[in-house]
């Protein structure tokens, strides 16, 4: 079934998707968060009538516009890339995945693109209230578009609300609400948007800190910091809560990913959480029999068990438990899953053959069997394992998962304190004296981007080798095309996006240097 598909084709196709997704994700979180921040600032303007707030709103809106354009540019590629590079996947899940994508276009993108025109150009054309409404609708539209794509991603992490139909050789939706309200999708949406609010707040504080350090536009900067620090602090607390729920969801539904990001090779009861550590990669001992998994580590006992199962002594399975199976805890090993997956694929092939030879009775009985609840639950559930030959390929990159998870969490904790300090200094009227903190604030901007990217690396690389958890490995999903063609488009995008990124950073820096215009007095 996979003739003509080489691993280098899969790697290049993945690299291209990673490249375009990571570039897109440089711009999106700022759009999501800054949109709301600008709307809050404009609300303050409309409520107080203070022209200073209008000046503040307009300044951040200019940066929003520059960032928004490039977010759009990088986003269109992603939507179509599902088709161009993952065409087998597109058919296999199109019945489910397409709906959120279409709703995203109809309900969210149009809202965003209609009202953004009023937000930018409507200051002198529509009433104050209608303008404010447009700014809010732009921000809401942006966040709504995140909802639908994250519902689709949530489904890839944990497929629900569907049945496999052998006749069409694809997954078909049986419950729209199950897909939409899948806890995985809900946590993913809440965690992703709230972390984007954090990033945007840090951006606003960092840029404002630069003004204060330069001794210019100080009132403007202080007002911006107060709004961003309150919003950022609230969002960061929420990010922690949703992150915790998300981790628990992963522990239950993607236990391999969970073990990978904790570097847990061998499971145990009352497992401890490695707060910080350096992974030791021993080539001679790939499954880490000798448990020399870390060069150094700081471990907090029992926390991992509690985090995963809300029980201090619960058993948390490690990588090896899932590969070899663990009878004591009822964990099925990889060979058994692979054999069940192969059975599912064989049944499907037999059905296709019967259909082709016109043997209707056999075909019908095979179809009934494949679509029976029992077969779907006990065999089809492991369909993707049928494509796997070496069980060890079921383990995602442990260092990549471990470090991306820990970078994200450590920085997330730091951000909470960062917002509190920023708020404290500003409200006490001392912020202009705290030069070190102001410098730290500027350097926190790249850290926010790092944390945000790390989150996606964990979510996507941690799911490997699956494109859809347990159902479809990337190797079965990729479009059959020459590797050279994908390499060409990969480098093309790398060049185009890098050029545009440089342009965007230069333009942003220059606009920041110009600062807020002093024309806020009108209206």
């Amino acid at each position, binding site marked *: 079934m996979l003739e003509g598909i080489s691993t280098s084709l899969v790697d290049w196709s993945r690299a291209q998707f990673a490249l375009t997704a990571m570039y897109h994700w440089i711009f999106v979180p700022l759009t999501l968060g800054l949109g709301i921040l600008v709307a809050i600032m404009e609300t303050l303007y409309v409520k107080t009538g203070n022209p200073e707030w209008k000046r503040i709103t307009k300044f951040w809106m200019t940066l929003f516009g520059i960032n928004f354009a490039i977010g759009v540019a990088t986003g269109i590629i992603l939507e179509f890339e599902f088709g161009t590079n993952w*065409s087998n996947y597109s058919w296999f899940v199109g*019945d489910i995945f397409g709906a959120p994508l*279409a709703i995203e*276009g109809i*309900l969210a993108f*149009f*809202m965003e693109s209609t009202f953004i025109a009023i937000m930018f150009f409507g200051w002198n054309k529509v009433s104050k209230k209608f303008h404010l409404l447009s700014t809010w609708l732009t921000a809401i539209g942006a966040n709504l578009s995140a909802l639908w794509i994250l519902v689709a991603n949530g489904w890839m992490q944990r497929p629900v609300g569907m049945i496999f139909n052998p006749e069409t050789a694809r997954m078909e939706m*049986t419950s729209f609400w199950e897909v939409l309200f899948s806890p995985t999708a809900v946590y993913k949406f809440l965690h992703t948007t709230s972390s984007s609010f954090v990033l945007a707040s840090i951006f606003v504080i960092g840029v404002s800190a630069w003004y204060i350090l330069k001794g210019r536009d100080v009132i403007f900067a202080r007002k911006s910091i107060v709004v961003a620090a309150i919003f950022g602090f609230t969002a960061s607390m929420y990010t922690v809560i949703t992150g915790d729920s998300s981790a628990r969801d992963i522990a239950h539904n993607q236990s391999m990913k969970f073990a990978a990001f904790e570097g847990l090779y061998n499971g145990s009861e009352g497992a401890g959480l490695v707060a910080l550590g350096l992974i030791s990669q021993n080539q001679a001992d790939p499954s880490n029999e000798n448990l020399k998994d870390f060069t150094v580590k700081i471990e907090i006992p029992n926390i991992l068990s509690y985090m995963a199962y809300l029980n201090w002594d619960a058993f948390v399975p490690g990588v090896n438990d899932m590969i070899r199976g663990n009878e004591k805890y009822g964990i099925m090993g990889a060979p058994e899953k692979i054999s069940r997956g192969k059975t599912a694929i064989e049944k499907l092939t037999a059905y296709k053959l019967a259909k082709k030879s016109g043997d209707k009775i056999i075909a019908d009985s095979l179809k009934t069997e494949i679509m029976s609840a029992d077969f779907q639950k006990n065999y089809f559930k492991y369909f993707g394992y049928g494509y796997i030959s070496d069980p060890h390929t079921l383990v995602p990159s442990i260092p990549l998962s471990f470090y991306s998870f820990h970078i994200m969490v450590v920085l997330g904790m730091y951000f909470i304190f960062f917002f509190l300090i920023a708020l404290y200094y500003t409200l006490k009227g001392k912020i202009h004296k705290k030069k070190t903190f102001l410098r730290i604030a500027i350097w926190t901007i790249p850290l926010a981007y790092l944390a945000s990217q790390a989150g996606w690396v964990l979510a996507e690389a941690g799911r490997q080798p699956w494109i859809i958890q347990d159902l479809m490995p990337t190797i079965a999903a990729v479009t059959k095309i020459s590797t050279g063609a994908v390499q060409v*488009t990969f480098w*093309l995008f790398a060049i185009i996006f890098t050029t545009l990124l440089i342009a965007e950073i230069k333009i942003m820096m220059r606009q920041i240097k110009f600062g807020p215009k002093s024309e806020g007095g009108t209206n």
Partner: protein
Amino acid sequence: MFESLSLITLQQYWWLIVSLLGALFVFLMFVQGGETLFFTIAKNEEEKSLLVNTLGRKWEFTFTTLVTFGGAFFASFPLFYATSFGGAYWVWFAILISFVIQAVSYEFRRKPANFLGAKTYEIFLFINGLLGPLLVGTAVGTFFNGAMFSLDDMKHVTWGTEFRGLEAVLTFHNLALGFAVVFLSRILGLLYFMNSVDNEAIYERSKKQLLYNTIPFLVFFLYFVIALLFKDGFAYNPTSGEISIESYKYLHNLLAMPINTLMFLVGVVGVLWGISSTLLKGGTKGIWFAGGGTILTVWALLILTAFNNTSFYPSIFDLQSSLTIENASSSRFTLVAMSYVSLFVPFVLGYIWYAWKSMNNEKITTKELEQEHHVY
């Protein structure tokens, strides 16, 4: 309410929606057409800025319609999405890249420290304006003339050439549609300038260009339509699903679907009226007739490719792999769920109309631009 509809009715309903999105997109490509005319119409920086800003406030509608068209096509006919996008790799990426460079160009063009310089961004817009309509038109040509793919049991696509879709330009009928769309988008761009920019010189130059673009448009469009009437088409048997070649298939479709044919004719007359009334009598209303006419014409043409048991994406590499609205669609369940979402469409169109109106009440002038905070 949608649950009671038959599967084929749902499939037809969704083809109507996707085609309507496609038709709206072609109309909204007046933005692309306009982008190829900055250097022709504007004689100085001030005039160029007027034109760029006029389109700059609308480009996102076109872009969003393209994205929504892609999403709706994926949701309702995922096999087309998988087959065409995965198969005609180079064509789709060429189209996409032309839209990627467009998306930043308005915003970045005049910003200080923009790295590439204003001229580069204007060239980006020109490339988008030319390649977008040309490639989209040529790609839609393959709906009538077929593409080089085959599908296996698992619906995995194999493409017949290494050119991955670019070979479509070798069929003149495809290319004729591509050029017709290029000139149509320029015509619509000109009519839009005449409608929304308050500047005498721009109006006069646009009017002159309107004539120059109408002639090649008519040549390519008439060739496309006449050849269509006489060509073989791809029919399918609704019971067995078998695909076969039928002589004069599209002529048969026109005769079998009189309402659609009427819509097509009204559309063509609308476009011609929009152009000729502007050329003869002047005025600024041409865009409404030509724009409305474009929507009706394209909608009718796309319906022609799929209804009356026609394969909308035929394969000339492996005839039986051809796609029809019956074999390429989503499941009944998904189509029903999506149909409920489609009820929001009138509401969305309503607020777009309202927003557009409140912004376009005042024509663009140099004075207005000077007072504007956000200028491209």
